């Protein structure tokens, strides 16, 4: 068992943009929807789970209108749904990450106060699964190389989801998730939509077998040459599991 702090949160990704540098706190809440099921004759209230879970994130920090920063991300909402990804337990390859298949931005507040820097605050509500997976490639400059270190996990026969978040200034790049039973011969598990300049995120799912070893793979698209300044995160969820 280990304890963690804010220093272990190295990025908070919304549609490929990292806003952690402006945040001072965020909370992720998950709760189960219930219905009161006590009846006449009961002397205690009774709640029963109705089979639906929901999540909400509140983020708070400094207002920053730089390109790619928090205002850039949030000003297009509320109402916008984005893929969200973050880690609470460190961000190295193989660490746990949390992926939101969809987070609807329901509010964006800017707050100017006397004798203080202007703050920004936003809230998201879940629009789809909230999952925990393993980091295959932490959010950083990807470069172009054949493969990254592989991550050893348990074989899953019921599928899972692959996450990609990226921000690139120019060029094109192909990103895949590979899997292998012996850490020697790998095949493609997921092929994400080819990245071009700009930022974005994608979540792909499979219901098939995911082998024991998995890795992220970046190759430049030859038509346009190497991608410039690509920052990317790749993660894998084995079966849909709540964090």
């Amino acid at each position, binding site marked *: 068992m280990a304890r963690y702090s804010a220093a272990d949160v190295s990025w908070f990704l919304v549609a490929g943009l990292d806003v952690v540098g402006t945040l001072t706190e965020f909370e992720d809440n998950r709760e189960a929807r219930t219905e009161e099921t006590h009846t006449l004759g009961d002397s205690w209230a009774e709640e029963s789970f109705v089979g639906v879970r929901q999540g909400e994130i509140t983020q708070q920090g400094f207002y920053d209108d730089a390109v790619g920063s928090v205002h850039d991300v949030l000003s297009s909402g509320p109402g916008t749904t984005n893929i969200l990804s973050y880690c609470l337990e460190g961000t190295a390859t193989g660490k746990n990450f949390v992926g939101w298949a969809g987070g609807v931005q329901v509010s964006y507040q800017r707050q100017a106060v006397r004798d203080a820097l202007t703050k920004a605050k936003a809230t998201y509500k879940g629009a789809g699964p909230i999952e925990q997976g393993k980091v295959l490639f932490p959010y950083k400059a990807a470069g172009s*190389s*054949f*493969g*990254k*270190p*592989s991550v050893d996990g348990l074989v899953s026969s019921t599928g899972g989801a692959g996450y990609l978040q990226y921000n690139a200034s120019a060029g094109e790049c192909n990103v*895949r998730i*590979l899997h292998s*039973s*012996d850490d*020697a*011969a*790998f*095949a*493609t598990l997921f*092929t994400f939509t080819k990245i071009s300049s700009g930022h974005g995120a994608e979540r792909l799912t499979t219901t098939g*077998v995911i*082998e024991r070893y998995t*890795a992220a*793979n970046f190759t430049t698209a030859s038509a346009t040459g190497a991608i410039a300044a690509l920052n990317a995160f790749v993660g894998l969820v084995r079966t849909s599991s709540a964090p």
Partner: protein
Amino acid sequence: MSRYRVLVDGLTYPTDPRILRRMAAGEQIPLGKRGMCEPHGVGDIVDDLPPASIKGLTLARWIELVEEVIE
């Protein structure tokens, strides 16, 4: 060496005998330093698979035997 048909997309593996010997000895080598071959697509015929991987790949239906060569 025997020839196999690839049944999955993007099959790739190390082909350098020195790398394979180091891996067989239990050495952990990052993917990027294994000299992996260019990915093969469905239907490609290959004859340079790592010997230790062939059984597992066959069982997983990632490859199928096309021509067996007894050496």
